[in-house]
């Protein structure tokens, strides 16, 4: 079996599917890497919850501006054509269905497209939701970027989520280190599988029944 995709490789794979001209929000954390791998011939406009459209890359050392940060509070830049706006307008963009795509991380995804990514069952720590629920419900398409299993090997793709939901029936596509899987009305439909990983092996690592597309291909990624 080929080596499972690294995080940057999953990000690369997601980036290949983003259409030219799309308005896209990347969740805080690993999904932010997607911005590094957009094919050069595509113009994508990135949105940040705190009020930026046309967000650019991390500034060079010494050029950071504490008043120009992304939703994860990291310094960013603004591209030509970019705009600033207040929170209310920013979430009108999200909740009003104006974003083409958001990419979010996940604790769990169900075969019905339910997403759990904001709270675990550990009640001793205060939960935080941020803009996750707004993004999950509001974006036209929701892609999930995640490892296929947890660090201890438990499947994250399940029949039903056991963690508190972020949104019900919201996920369109899941990109993992082992596969690209679409959520359809009939459940998970595998579009691509890592080379050398059998369908049975992928099924064994998944907590819900998988169907395989007729044209199911090999999951490959650039050496990034």
């Amino acid at each position, binding site marked *: 079996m080929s080596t499972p995709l690294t995080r940057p490789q999953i990000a690369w794979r997601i980036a290949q599917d983003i259409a030219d001209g799309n308005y896209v929000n990347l969740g805080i954390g690993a999904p932010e890497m997607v911005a590094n791998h957009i094919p050069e011939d595509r113009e994508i406009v990135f949105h940040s919850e705190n*009020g930026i459209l046309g967000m650019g890359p991390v500034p060079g050392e010494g050029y950071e501006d504490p008043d120009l940060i992304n939703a994860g509070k990291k310094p960013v830049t603004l591209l030509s054509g970019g705009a600033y706006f207040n929170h*209310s307008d920013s979430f009108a963009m999200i909740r009003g269905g104006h974003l083409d795509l958001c990419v979010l991380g996940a604790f769990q995804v169900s075969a019905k497209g339910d997403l759990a990514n904001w*709270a675990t069952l550990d009640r001793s720590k205060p939960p935080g939701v941020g803009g996750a629920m707004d993004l999950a419900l*509001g974006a036209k398409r929701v892609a999930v970027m995640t490892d296929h299993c947890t660090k201890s090997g438990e499947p994250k793709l399940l029949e039903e989520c056991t963690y508190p*939901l972020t*949104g019900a029936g919201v996920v369109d596509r899941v990109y993992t280190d082992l596969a690209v899987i679409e959520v359809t009305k009939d459940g998970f439909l595998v579009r691509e599988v890592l080379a050398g990983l059998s369908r049975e092996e992928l099924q064994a690592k998944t907590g819900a029944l998988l169907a395989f597309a007729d044209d199911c291909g090999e999951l490959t990624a650039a050496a990034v």
Partner: protein
Amino acid sequence: MLQGAKELTIVSNNAGEGEFGLAKLMKTGAIRKVICTYPRSAGSVVFEDLYEQGKIELEVVPQGTLSERMRAAGAGIGGFYTPTSAGTLLGEGKETREFDGRVHVLEQPLKGDVALVKARLADRWGNLTYNKSARNFGPVMAMAADLTIAQVDQFVELGELDPEMIITPGLFVDRVVEVG
């Protein structure tokens, strides 16, 4: 902090960091409740300690709902329905209604007694401009409180702000403090 107000309810995106600003106020025990979207950020140690000891209440609100609740308060709207949080823990116990086949929850306006807003420039009428992504919740908080106090980098004369650049009209602002 010096004027000694107690039993405060704070509305903020996060629950403070380090031991300055909001966290410093929290440490004095003056805050009873925090309404925020994401209490656990890097360095939110004061809040986490108080929360573990059960000494502070927490209401977690989705970020867009928080913003819209303040906007509603500022715009005189009695409440609104949104699909965000429907069918989740945060939507539990809320009145629901279906629009276009989609379940929405009823959310209430969120009004403040005092709003503290950071802006870039202000004039004598309280007109405000902001700087980059630091605009943030500023404009919506400014309209949602009885007393809005703006902290600004610089105070300018009337007429110096291009009217097309003014983001928060002075009507929403009661006091301006220049901090440079």
